[in-house]
């Protein structure tokens, strides 16, 4: 894009021509733009203009410039010595006039100015990067190899800052480096290069050509075949990847959502998709290892099998209670092919000789224990990994440092493609910029003491209201659950069976109602509080909701894990009362009910909260603005549902299937509702930060709580005596121990393993030591992070110092050049300075 360059200084408004960035040899004449600014500022006299014109004629193709105003801001940094002050003043004066062409030429070819400018610069930059990568891959440099100076010297790192080589030789060297790297590194390097696709293809083909010529001479027939097979495999892998990419779940819908609402609302649906994959994984694991084997060998059913009425879908009891869904169905014995010959109901099947291990057997209790344990362990690893990845992306070192700049460059959401939302986004950004500007300008404004006190009072009142409401609801749930539990155990025959089962739904309805209504109350209270900063408002709302949900779940877990098992010792009766027979199945049913009722209430909330409110506000209130989609509230609700699912896997192996169905339906309903009824949230929403927070919340209160409850159940609670794979044992954990004992009895060679098991797993000392080591590792890592933070501050200081050095050298260079000119000119410049 070459246009003509005009050096006529008498017309300051001249259009400055630009050279194509690919032309490296030309002096960078964007400084000519600064000429006009400087000439406007300084109002050069005619004489000086003439002088400058003469200069131009003398030194050929040159341009003159001064440095613009803001450049002097950084100069007055921290030096108290008068000598340096003198120097600075002198350099100021010099630079106010002009810089000569030689200086400019040097300045324009400084490495930092050339990066990003041209292809050759990019290639040399990436050559350096590949060198560093090679070094890193080969060996870690020892600390003693680093130079002793406080400032890292360029020579010490072997970085070659050579811009005088031609483009071709640079390319050669880069290709050489790329060849030496491994395939993965090479691909990563190539992908990250900011070059044109055709240039990358060229580099790639050059690299591959060279590797081929190196190795083709040594290829035998077999390795050539292997080579072709590998190429064919890679080709099919690429086509599979592209096929999968086009097959992505719900891609069109998500694109529509992001096109109209932006990244914030999209993050809710992406989180939903993420949870869906967890549940699919859980279902696969429990399905393959628990449900399938048990389905192939169904146990003998009880005499009184209830018939299917429609209520089961809601309550989960009735017909469902004796099916694969619940814990009670699973046998406590090894499943074998010759079931008729085996004695049922034995804990260890060593009695009958025909139950020998000639046939493939499947130890159900052990399988149950290990499947649940493994599922939780793998889920934990996946969660921690995604949490750390998300945290790494969203971590910020300094806070609120460059707010306005970030708002200007990073706030335009390129995903939004519809016309009206784009207009809305522009308005939002405009408002936010104005607010930020006002905040920055009025930062000195402080509240008076009276206002501060008033604010404190309002916040205190708001928090009191919230905590009081939460506590009230918790107490209510506690007593109501107790009451309902008593009611069930009374065996009141006067009530109909259906009514009795329907009364099981009362507790879930109450809890879901509380979960729906209280966040609305919190919102009202937050409106009253009138926060200044929207992010603080979001965090406060989030913490209040979280507090509510965590405490509700805590109370429920206490009810299920302490009260229900303790009160389940009833005399054997012919009545098929689930609480007497099988408390685990009862808890599983409770969780099923909670999930279903929760889903129904969400549907109702979507219907009333979004659809009807939109109709109301359109027709009756005649407002143009539609209700916004509250992202945080909805995501917290998803996390709550997932916690219930995780709690329930132990008692209901098929609960992930219910959760999957629920999430699928929720996705379609929510997308339709959002598209029809809502608009994008007006307040700025920091996507990566909030996503990190949500994944952290999913990991810490949610998954950790669920796994603690499950571990507690497995460790301490006595399983019910008449149903399930662990019946008769003191705790579920004992199944493992029993297996160990059995193994030791049958096979004396494995006694070492059994002894190791006794000492390591059962002895709490080992667990303490393990936890201690874990904590020590965490401490070391946190110290490393601290050290790195200190290094970052040191490096920032060094960057500032380097900047100072640079300015100093430039001015010295300029002064030397000035001294070479006629003394008369120096006199005039000193006079005008």
């Amino acid at each position: 894009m070459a246009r003509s360059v005009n050096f006529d200084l008498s017309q300051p408004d001249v259009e400055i021509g630009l050279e194509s960035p690919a032309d490296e040899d030309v002096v960078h004449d964007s400084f000519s733009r600064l000429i006009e600014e400087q000439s406007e500022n300084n109002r050069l006299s005619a004489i000086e203009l003439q002088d400058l014109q003469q200069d131009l004629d003398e030194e050929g193709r040159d341009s003159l410039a001064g440095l613009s105003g803001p450049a002097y801001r950084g100069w007055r940094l921290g030096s108290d010595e008068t000598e340096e002050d003198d120097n600075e003043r002198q350099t100021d004066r010099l630079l106010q006039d002009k810089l000569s062409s030689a200086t400019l030429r040097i300045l324009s070819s400084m490495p930092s100015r050339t990066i990003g400018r041209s292809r050759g610069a990019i290639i040399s930059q990436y050559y350096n990067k590949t060198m560093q990568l090679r070094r890193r891959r080969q060996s870690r440099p020892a600390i003693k190899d680093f130079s002793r100076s406080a400032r890292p010297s360029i020579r010490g790192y072997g970085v070659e800052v050579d811009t005088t080589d031609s483009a071709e030789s640079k390319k050669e060297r880069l290709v050489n480096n790329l060849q030496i790297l491994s395939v993965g590194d090479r691909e990563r390097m190539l992908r990250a290069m900011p070059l044109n696709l055709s240039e990358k293809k060229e580099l790639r083909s050059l690299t591959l050509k060279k590797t081929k010529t190196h190795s083709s001479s040594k290829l035998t027939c077999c390795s050539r075949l292997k080579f072709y097979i590998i190429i064919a495999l890679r080709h099919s892998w690429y086509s599979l990847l592209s096929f999968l990419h086009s097959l992505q779940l719900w891609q069109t819908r998500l694109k529509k959502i992001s096109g109209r609402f932006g990244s914030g609302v999209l993050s809710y649906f992406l989180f939903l998709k993420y949870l869906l994959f967890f549940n699919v994984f859980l279902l696969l694991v429990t399905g393959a290892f628990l449900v399938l084997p048990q389905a192939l060998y169904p146990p003998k059913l009880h005499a009184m099998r209830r018939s299917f009425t429609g209520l089961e879908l809601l309550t989960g009891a009735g017909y469902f209670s004796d099916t694969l869904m619940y814990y009670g169905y699973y046998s406590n014995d090894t499943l074998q092919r010759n079931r008729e010959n085996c004695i049922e109901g034995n804990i260890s099947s060593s009695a009958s000789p025909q139950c020998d291990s000639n046939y493939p057997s499947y130890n159900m209790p052990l399988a149950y224990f290990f499947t649940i344990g493994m599922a939780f362990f793998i889920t934990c690893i996946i969660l921690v990994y995604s949490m750390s990845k998300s945290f790494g992306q969203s971590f910020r070192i300094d806070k609120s440092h460059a707010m306005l700049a970030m708002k200007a460059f990073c706030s335009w959401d390129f995903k939004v493609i519809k016309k009206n939302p784009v207009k809305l986004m522009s308005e939002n950004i405009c408002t936010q910029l104005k607010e930020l500007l006002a905040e920055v300008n009025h930062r000195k404004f402080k509240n008076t003491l009276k206002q501060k006190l008033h604010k404190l009072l309002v916040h205190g009142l708001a928090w009191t209201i919230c905590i009081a409401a939460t506590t009230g609801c918790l107490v209510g749930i506690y007593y109501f659950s107790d009451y309902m539990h008593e009611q069930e155990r009374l065996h009141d025959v006067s009530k109909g069976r259906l009514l009795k089962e329907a009364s099981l739904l009362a507790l879930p309805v109450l809890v879901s109602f509380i979960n729906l209504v209280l966040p609305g109350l919190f919102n009202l209270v937050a409106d009253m509080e009138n926060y200044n900063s929207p992010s603080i408002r979001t965090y406060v709302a989030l913490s209040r909701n979280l507090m509510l949900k965590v405490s509700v779940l805590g109370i429920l877990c206490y009810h299920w894990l302490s009260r229900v098992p303790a009160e389940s010792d009833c005399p054997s009766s012919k009545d098929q009362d689930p609480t007497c027979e099988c408390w685990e199945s009862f808890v599983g049913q409770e969780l099923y009910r909670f999930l279903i009722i929760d889903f129904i209430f969400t549907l109702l909330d979507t219907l009333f909260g979004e659809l009807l409110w939109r109709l109301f506000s359109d027709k009756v209130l005649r407002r143009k603005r539609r209700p916004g989609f509250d992202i945080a509230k909805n995501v917290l609700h998803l996390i709550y549902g997932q916690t219930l699912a995780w709690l329930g896997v132990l008692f209901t192996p098929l609960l992930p299937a219910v959760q999957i169905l629920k999430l699928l339906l929720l996705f379609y309903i929510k997308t339709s509702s959002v598209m029809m009824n809502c608009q994008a949230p007006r307040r700025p929403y920091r996507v990566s930060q909030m996503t990190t927070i949500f994944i952290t919340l999913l990991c810490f209160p949610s998954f950790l709580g669920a796994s603690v409850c499950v571990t507690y159940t497995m460790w301490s609670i006595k399983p019910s005596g008449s149903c399930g794979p662990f019946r008769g044992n003191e705790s579920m954990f004992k199944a493992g121990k029993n297996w160990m004992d059995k193994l030791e009895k049958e096979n004396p060679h494995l006694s070492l393993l059994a002894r190791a098991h006794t000492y390591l797993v059962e002895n709490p000392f080992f667990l303490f030591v393990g936890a201690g080591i874990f904590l020590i590792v965490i401490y070391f890592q946190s110290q490393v992070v601290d050290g790195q933070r200190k290094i970052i501050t040191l490096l920032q200081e060094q960057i500032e110092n380097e900047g100072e050095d640079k300015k100093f050298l430039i001015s010295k260079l300029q002064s030397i050049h000035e001294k070479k000119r006629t003394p008369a000119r120096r006199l005039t410049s000193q006079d005008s300075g």
Partner: protein
Amino acid sequence: MGNKQTIFTAQQLDAYQVGYGSHFLLFYRYRDLAPQLVPLDYTNQPDVKLPYELIGSMPELKDNPFRQRIAEVFSEDGEGNMTLDDFLDMFSVLSEMAPRDLKAYYAFKIYDFNNDDFICKSDLEKTLNKLTRNELTEDEVKMVCEKVIDEADLDNDGRLSLEDFQNMINRAPDFLSTFHIRI
């Protein structure tokens, strides 16, 4: 739609792995813009360039105020007329898998309206006007520009170089999610 095997040769397919994103999907989108101009068979690398008007009429770019700059930055001739390679390049940088530095580099080029490899005050003013559809007053625009340069300019030359820009982007975790177009 033709057989995928006959659109690109094996080497071409291999070479396209240096981009991010699904190149078949993108090829079909490119073709949909002008089916009569773009052949189904790219094995002999035909020299086809779609004019900027067609690119700018894509639904993903139609209402984006920066669409002209985006097309100019990624096109070979700098005018916005794109070959298939340019098109693939553009959407692979704007996909969600592209690394942060790559995106920052191209974002810098997009916001640099006068192509002088620095984001100076006039570039900033143009950016702000496009962002807010000229809703900010002159004074406000000037103040915002000053503050932005104040905050982000590290080497104190009055405008933002690529390093200043990248430094600032590294502190903005939202950049990765906003500088992303879904295809």
